[in-house]
């Protein structure tokens, strides 16, 4: 699938898919990479080294620092795929150097799929 490059690089990993938006601040623990938002579809799951797939960001604009912090703490997702990346997530992934693509039909990616994310060519391959 072709999309739009938000942040360059390539990543390979297992997809973890959320049908709901993600707010990184208050939504994901910066030290463990575990989703802590109550009643979120991914609550209790870790995003570490995964290809994190979700429609769009939500909530606090401090989310950019959380994404940067996840990377510095070694618990960040390997890559991010969105339907639409808004500024908060974009700023975070650019600063953290996490490959990211948006404008992808994320319904075609299932939880547990092996995904190759080639942000440089704005390409997502489900293997």
């Amino acid at each position: 699938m072709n999309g739009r490059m938000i942040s360059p690089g390539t990543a390979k990993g297992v997809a973890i898919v959320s049908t709901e938006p993600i707010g990184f601040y208050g939504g994901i623990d910066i030290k463990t990479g575990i989703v802590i938002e109550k009643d979120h579809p991914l609550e209790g799951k870790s995003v570490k080294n995964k290809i994190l797939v979700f429609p769009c960001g939500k909530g606090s604009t401090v989310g950019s620092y959380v994404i940067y912090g996840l990377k510095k703490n070694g618990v960040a997702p390997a890559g991010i795929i969105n339907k639409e990346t808004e500024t908060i997530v974009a700023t975070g992934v650019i600063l953290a150097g996490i490959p990211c693509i948006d404008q992808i039909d994320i319904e075609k990616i299932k939880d547990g799929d092996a995904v190759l994310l080639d942000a440089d060519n704005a390409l997502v391959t489900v293997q």
Partner: protein
Amino acid sequence: MYLTKEEEDILDGGKGEVLERLFRLLVRLGDIYGAEKMIPVGSVQVAGVSYKSVGDPGLAFLEDMASKGAKVKVLTYLNPAGMDLENWEKLGFPKDFAKNQIRVMDAFKKMGIVVTSTCTPYLAGNLPRFREHIAWSESSAVSFSNSVIGARTNREGGPSALAAAICGRTPNYGLHLWEKRQPNVKINIDADLSFSSDFGALGYFVGKQVKNKIPYFTGIKDANTDQLKALGAAMAASGAVALYHAENLTPEADLVEKNGLETINVSKKELDETYEKLNSGKDPDIVILGCPHASLREISSLADKLKGKHLKKPVWICTSRMMKEAADRMGFTEIIEKAGGSIVADTCMVVSPIERMGYKTTGVNSGKAANYLPGFCKQDVVFANIDKLVEGQA
């Protein structure tokens, strides 16, 4: 994107490493979102101030910027810090936390940022005008400035706002453009809204429904700026609403195109269900008001309710240092403290480490706070109107 000669020079490193790095971030964002050029900003508001939010990685990032001589070009305010910057010891904030929080503040001050920490900069001396381009990041302040004032800002991430402050510019896309400020969903209200918590419940419900859309409200009979602040804050927390219009209440409502929009009806039923949903606890250990930061009117109203009372359990009201000064002068602080309550400045319940201070259940009248407290402060929440909350603590 078109860049001026000066801007190209910044990008080539002609103005130093810090400017190059931060300007590169802005250019990248501009390229992604289709900006044709950069525009100057009138003011900036930077989120990512509490040590609890930015952590060690954020602190290192900020100290690195400050030590390399980064300086802001426009009036720049800060979001709430993780503690009352003057009264933290008395209020029981942990010492190790305070030490790191002070380092964060020092880094910001070194960059020329006004170290007044508030999520309501528009009540504390950073007030944009109608149609002024700004780069703000606190999600509730973004909503207020776009919607209630009619200034123009995208939802900036903490670092992209800092970049805008230091470069004095922001890429011209999104909500800076008139055509992108048009509503795409209509919300019709058929319910009486009286307390701020009613507006919070409404905002929480609508934010969940519309996610990052621009709602156009009809049927809100009246609302003051405190209530509009509560509405916008909740929508920005449960969703990503950066701008809303409200018929007869907000300045762009008459100007935008609102024909043929999908309509969502909200009645008392949806609000009651939202109250129920946001309640996860009983009998609060502490009640915390002032999310977003209380106006003087809200502090005055709490003082009225507490006059002559003796609280059994604590009630805090969070506000900016400026409002606290006025409350001190008016005697509101004395009344609230005599009853056993506290006015807490510079911080709020969401970004302060209340879970480390022995509190397990927090009572709030804010839809935004009710949204964040369970995840970020591990609190059970009692969400109710101010009268019920205060009564419960007395």
